[in-house]
C-alpha cells in the first residue's frame, strides 16, 4: 500500500512533467512537501516545478516546507473523478477535520494553484483543473 502511493506520486510527477502550464506556474517552486497518509510519510522534492523524487519516511532528518496530513480513505475520495463535497479540494480536509495542513502555509498559498493542480493529477479523470 505504501509503495503503491509512492508509485502514484511518481506517476503524478511524470504527468506534471508533461504539462507545460504547470511547469510554468511552478517555475519558482523548489521545495520539499510532506504528504502523510495514515501516518506514512512521503517526501515530495520539487525543483523548479518538477517532481525530482519521492522518498518514503519515516524520517526526522528530511526538512519540509509544508505538510498535508490525512487518511487513505479521504485521499481516495479526493482522487475520485467527481469528488463529493468537501473531498473536492485539499482545504476540505482541514475544514472537515479529516486532515491538517502544517508548516509554511503562506508558501503553499503563494503556490496554491500549482500545488492543487499537482495534487489533482492523481484523479482518474481531470475534474477540477
Amino acid at each position, binding site marked *: 500500500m505504501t509503495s503503491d502511493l509512492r508509485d502514484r506520486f511518481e506517476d503524478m510527477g511524470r504527468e506534471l512533467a508533461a504539462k507545460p502550464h504547470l511547469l510554468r506556474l511552478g517555475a519558482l517552486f523548489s521545495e520539499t512537501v510532506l504528504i502523510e497518509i495514515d501516518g506514512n510519510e512521503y517526501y515530495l522534492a520539487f525543483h523548479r516545478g518538477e517532481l525530482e523524487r519521492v522518498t518514503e519516511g519515516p524520517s526526522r532528518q528530511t526538512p519540509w516546507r509544508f505538510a498535508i496530513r490525512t487518511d487513505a480513505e479521504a485521499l481516495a475520495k479526493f482522487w475520485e473523478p467527481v469528488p463529493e463535497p468537501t473531498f*473536492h479540494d485539499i482545504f*476540505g480536509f*482541514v*475544514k472537515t477535520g479529516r486532515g491538517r495542513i502544517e508548516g509554511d502555509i*503562506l508558501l503553499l498559498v503563494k503556490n496554491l*494553484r500549482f500545488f*492543487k493542480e499537482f495534487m489533482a493529477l492523481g484523479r482518474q479523470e481531470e475534474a477540477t483543473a
Partner: protein
Amino acid sequence: MSAPNYEPIIGRYVTIEVAGRSYRVYVEEAGQGQPVICFHTAGADSRQWRHIMNDAEMTTNYRFIAPDMPWHGKSLPPEGFEEEEYLLTTEVYVETVLKLVEALGLENPIYAGCSMGGRIALQLALNNPEPFKGFIAIEASDFQPAWYDIDWFHRPDAHGGEMGAALVSANIAPQGPKAERWNTQWMFMQSGPGVFRGDLNFYTKDDSLVGKLGGIDTSGKPLHIMVGTYDMTCTPEDAKRTADQIPGATLAVMEGIGHFPMSENPATFRPHFIEALAKMG
C-alpha cells in the same frame, strides 16, 4: 454587411454619493419588466450575472440590473484611494445599495445577491426592507468567520488575485463546465489590489446579524435563501441555520454547485433561480 451580433446586455455609468464620498459606478442591465438588482460576491464583479442577463426567457419578464460595487470591476475607487486601506463595512455596503436603487429609479425591485451580497440581503431585509419587493440571498448566512488568513490576499511579495482565485477554487463544484469554472476564477485574478481582502474584512468579521434574524418580517417581503452543496465557505448547514432563524424564509439546496452558482454552473443554477424569482410574487 450584417448587424453586429451583440449580446442584449448594456452597460452604463452612474455617480452616487455614499458616506459623503462620490463613486462612479458601472451598471449593466438587460430585460424588461420587474426589476431585479443583482449583487456579486466578494472579489469579483457583475460579470458573474451575465448568463442570467443573457437568458432570453427570463429577460422577457424581468429587468436585471447588475452593478459593479465601488472598487470592483469597471467601477472606480473613490478619490484618494491610493493612500487608503480598503475595508468594506456593512454601513457603506447598505448605503451603496440604497443609493443605487434611488439613482437608478428602480421601483419595488427584487434584491438578489451572492455571498457578501447575500449577507447584505439579510441586512436589508432586517433593517431597510422598504424599497424592495423581496430578497434572494444566495450562499448567505448570518456570520462566517474566516477559515483562512485574509491578509494572504494583499501582500507586496505575491499576487493577491492569483492566490485569491486559487483559494476560492475550493468553493467551486467540479460539475460545472470547465470554461465557466475558470471564468469565475478570472474575476478574482483581476480584482484590484487589496479589494478581496477588504471585502472579506466585512464578510468574515461582521457578526451584527447574529441573534437578530428573528426580527426579519417575511410576511410582505419574501426571503429565499439558496446554497450549493459544494460551498465550503457558506455550507448548506450554515444556510439552514440561517433560514431556520427567520420565520417564513425558504431554503433551496442546490446539488453540484458551489459558492458562485450563477457564474460557475449557469445551466444548473437556472431552474433554481427561476424558482426563486417565482417565490418573490
